[in-house]
């Protein structure tokens, strides 16, 4: 498993040497500052709207970073043929998958630290207070959620050859889960027979990313921090799904031809 860390370090290096992260961060900063400089209708809840907007931008930027960074990892290794000298060393295919996952997840984590630092500065400058525990929980659960996303996209990169199609399909699935995932059980109750069972099965099978996204509202409305037991449960849930998706990825990649 020691080979995972060098592989992960290359992924992190790739993140800070490419322009994607900087572009998304600057865009988030500019849009947030632009909206922060305008006082709409003298509304005293403007800070709340600003926090909502900033967090929404952070979620969008982090999803774009996670999906685009992960989607190109394995296809790029195969296309440039660097996968051959890498696997010709004492590195197993499972280690390659684990290394890529760790790298992408850590890269997302580093990006989140920068984004949430900016969010903290904006929030503190407007509200003159900082809810440390809540912010930590929000960032942590956001990161756990990105772990599932990274594992999902890594699986997609084994199934779909082109990174663009993988990224598009994964983004649609992720956004679909975030918007509709929580309502599937309600839909299933209204359906009868096999269709209802099928929708129920999907409800229990998909990773509920919307739970993590809901933490955003808690931060925006300054609600008290989540019970630490629930926080730990959500962490274990996310790690379980990430591990489950990585196992499937490894099973598929084990017998996959290395050439495109």
């Amino acid at each position, binding site marked *: 498993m*020691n*080979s995972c*860390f*060098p*592989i992960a*370090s*290359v992924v992190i*290096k*790739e993140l800070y*040497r*490419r322009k994607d992260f900087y572009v998304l961060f600057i865009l988030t900063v500019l849009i947030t500052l632009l909206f922060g400089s305008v006082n709409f209708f003298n509304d005293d809840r403007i800070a709340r709207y600003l926090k909502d907007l900033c967090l929404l931008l952070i979620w969008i930027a982090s999803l774009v970073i996670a999906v685009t960074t992960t989607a190109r990892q394995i296809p790029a290794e195969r296309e*440039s*043929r*660097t996968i*051959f*000298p*890498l*696997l*010709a*060393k*004492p*590195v*197993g295919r499972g280690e390659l998958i684990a290394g890529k996952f760790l790298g992408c997840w850590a890269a997302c984590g580093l990006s989140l630290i920068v984004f949430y630092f900016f969010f903290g500065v904006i929030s503190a400058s407007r509200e003159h207070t900082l809810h440390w525990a809540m912010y930590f929980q929000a960032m942590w659960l956001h990161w756990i959620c990105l772990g599932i996303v990274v594992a999902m996209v890594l699986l997609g990169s084994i199934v779909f050859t082109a990174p663009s199609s993988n990224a598009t399909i994964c983004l649609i699935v992720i956004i679909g889960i975030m918007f509709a995932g929580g309502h599937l059980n309600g839909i299933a109750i209204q359906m009868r027979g096999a269709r209802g069972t099928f929708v129920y099965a999907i409800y229990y099978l998909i990773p509920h990313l919307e739970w993590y996204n809901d933490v955003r509202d808690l931060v925006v409305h300054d609600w008290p921090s989540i019970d630490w037991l629930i926080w730990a449960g959500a962490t274990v849930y996310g790690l379980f799904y990430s591990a489950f998706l990585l196992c499937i990825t490894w099973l598929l990649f084990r017998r996959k031809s*290395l050439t495109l």
Partner: protein
Amino acid sequence: MNSVVEIQDLRVEFPNRDLGRGRGSKVAVDGLNLRVNAGEVFGFLGPNGAGKTTTMNVLLGFVNATSGSASIFGVNVRQPIARKRIGYLPELTYYYKFLNTEELLRFYARIFRIPRHESEQRIDSVLKLVELESARKRLIKTYSKGMQQRVGLAQALINNPDLLILDEPTSGLDPLGRMKVRQIIQRLKEEGKTVFFSSHELGEVETVCDRVAILHEGKLRVEGPVAALVQQYQCDLEHVFLKIVGYQSNPPT
């Protein structure tokens, strides 16, 4: 003499995509028996599609054999540990363009768990060998094709391997680049390394190889010392090769 590579009755079949899944298979390598001894430079020859790269892929664990066995240093090639003492240069690889050569070599050294101080020494020595010392801090994306190929050689040598597997190391290089790669192979031979390489440059093979094997349509057609083959067929290696693969040249009219 100690054998470094040993292949016994190797057979590799791939599903035939033209016929559709499950409808037939294409035999890439058929009943191959081969032995490469320690310290020799072994040329693995054959026309395109003869099964050279497939055999190398089996040795490197990329492809599983349908039947037969292959071992490196007595360890079955399916075990990742078999690759601990080998260096591999694939044909035409475009290394991570966001890294410079030094970072790339440090990355591969970390994979082999070479201690930091030792890896720095190794990086210096391989960069000197492939003559890339002055460009070590430059991003790989700015390198020419010849330089990229030398980066490939450097990464193959980072763990000071006892066996080098080179897949067409001079492919796409200009005469100067080819000469440099040839000189490196000669120097490795002098250091006592075993080199197993495939090439279409038969003049170069004749210069550097101790023994060669010629593969055609997946089957081993001939194997032996270069000098013995040249003497047996009373012509140079290129003509030996052409005779063995059944090429009939028409005299110009």
